[in-house]
């Protein structure tokens, strides 16, 4: 987990892979992540500066301050927004994918975690005043995504073969 403000790793290459429960900030490059099941891929893009962040959280809300911020939707989004703000990136908009229900567990009284992740993302983005300008969420298929921070374009590829451009 990189603290915000540290130099980006791989600053010389054109594609940066974001792991589960991690995030990255970049300009002019592609941020990519895969293995999105119930997890979310949240692309945050500042069109004025062309700076973007990709967050890959696993769970909706961080209730224990001892847990890593990147792991949760609410704290992960805020962490990435802080990093964008530190770069004076300007107003930010969001695109959202993931949140599938690949496995339905017996003891999920609040509903599948994928759906709760999507709800949490909408809630925290609204609370932070970030417009949600595109989404491809839910269903029962895994996803990979590529986020081109040069243009703000997000390409989502589902494991059932459907590709969506956001």
């Amino acid at each position, binding site marked *: 987990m990189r603290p915000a403000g540290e130099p980006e*790793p*791989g*600053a*010389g*290459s*054109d*594609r*940066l*892979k974001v*792991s*589960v*429960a*991690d995030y990255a900030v970049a300009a002019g490059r592609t941020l990519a992540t*895969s*293995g*999105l*099941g*119930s*997890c979310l891929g949240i692309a945050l893009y500042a069109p004025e500066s062309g700076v973007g962040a990709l967050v890959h959280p*696993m*769970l909706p809300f961080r209730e224990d301050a001892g*847990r*890593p911020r990147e*792991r949760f939707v609410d704290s992960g989004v805020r962490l990435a927004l802080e990093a964008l703000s530190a770069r004076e990136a300007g107003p930010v908009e969001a695109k959202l994918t993931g949140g*599938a*229900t*690949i*496995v*339905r*567990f*017996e*003891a999920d009284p609040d509903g*599948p*975690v*994928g759906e709760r992740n999507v709800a949490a993302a909408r809630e925290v983005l609204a609370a932070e005043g970030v417009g949600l300008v595109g989404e491809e969420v839910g269903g029962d*298929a*895994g*996803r*990979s995504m590529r986020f081109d921070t040069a243009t703000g374009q997000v390409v989502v590829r589902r*494991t059932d073969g459907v590709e969506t451009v956001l």
Partner: protein
Amino acid sequence: MQVDIQSLETFNRLARDGARSAAASLSELTGIDTNVEVTNVSLMAPADLRYEFVGRRFSGVHIGLDGALSGETVLMFDSEARAAVTDVLVPSDDPEMERSSVKEVGNIMTSGFIDGWAEHLEAGIDITPPDYVEGSGAEVLPTSTLAGDEQVFVFRSRVEAVSDAIDFRMCFVPERAALTSALEAESDDTVAFEKLEVFNEMTEQGAAKAAGNITSMTGLETDVEVNRLSFVPIADIPAAVGDQPYVGTVLEYHGRPSGYLVILFDRPSARSVVDALVPTETDGAWGEMEQSAIEELGNIMTSGFIDGWANVLETSIDHSPPQFVADMGSSIMSPVVGRMARDQDHAFLLDSTIETDDDGVFRCEIFALPDGDELREVLGELLVDRADEIHADPDEVF
């Protein structure tokens, strides 16, 4: 000897930081940017470690450690990674120069890997001059893993380049006595090293039983090829399973311990299983009949696997009906580890690979993720200190 779980977490972090530091050195020397994909510490039989490297060519450096943490490290580049490194550093096509550049880069990267450990232990670690190693599979592994059958602790990291399909691996095998004194218990949160070994052996027996179930149901001759118990950061588990497509079942088990069991076949193997189980011609899709065939097999394999644990641990463990899944491995694991990530940062991952004899044509992976606290508790209650004193004979209970 008690293993302190907190120390195990700390050591895992040191291995990750060390791998990052090695990756940063590589980047500085060659401009190749990398991402640390997986770091874990596994307890496994040397033969199982060797099996994992069969058939692939590696080159790199072997370095011996002495002092605060004695043991061996090997840094291995696969063929593509080696070519990428030498392309940058050796403009001419000179094999001798290429070897020496790999040796130099490997030496600098290994130093980066080791520094954090020395700092943590507040003591010096002496390193031997690097030996260039090159060969297929096990030829490049630490020499301590080439003989004997006593289980070894192996710290491993897999690091991939961000833009190319190249990777390198760090493999650190500490000497058992050195590791056990470094992991000496500082808290009550401990588990006996010997019990982990017993549990690992039990799991292998359970996997063997599950392999036997595959054979009796499908006629495919299968065997357990690799079995290991890893202690792994939760967020690394999807990457450890990988992005390739799988078909299989996921279920929850309840009892002591509770947890999750994921059985995954690669697609051709799943197809072989279905062809053997479903007598009528199917259209190639994963329809209802195919799904229930896979679920039924998952159910029987699970019973073989879980019943063995319950017998040895003298507890009762029930499981939910298996759920059919067909997706990329990492996506299948994401909801499972998501649930565990609510209150764990690290997890014990038991991973067994079942294959047909040596040809690798049929492949099934079993991943068992027991709740960490519950596993510690039940192992704590196991009335054995050593594997050879166990009162339950694995051959009888499985």
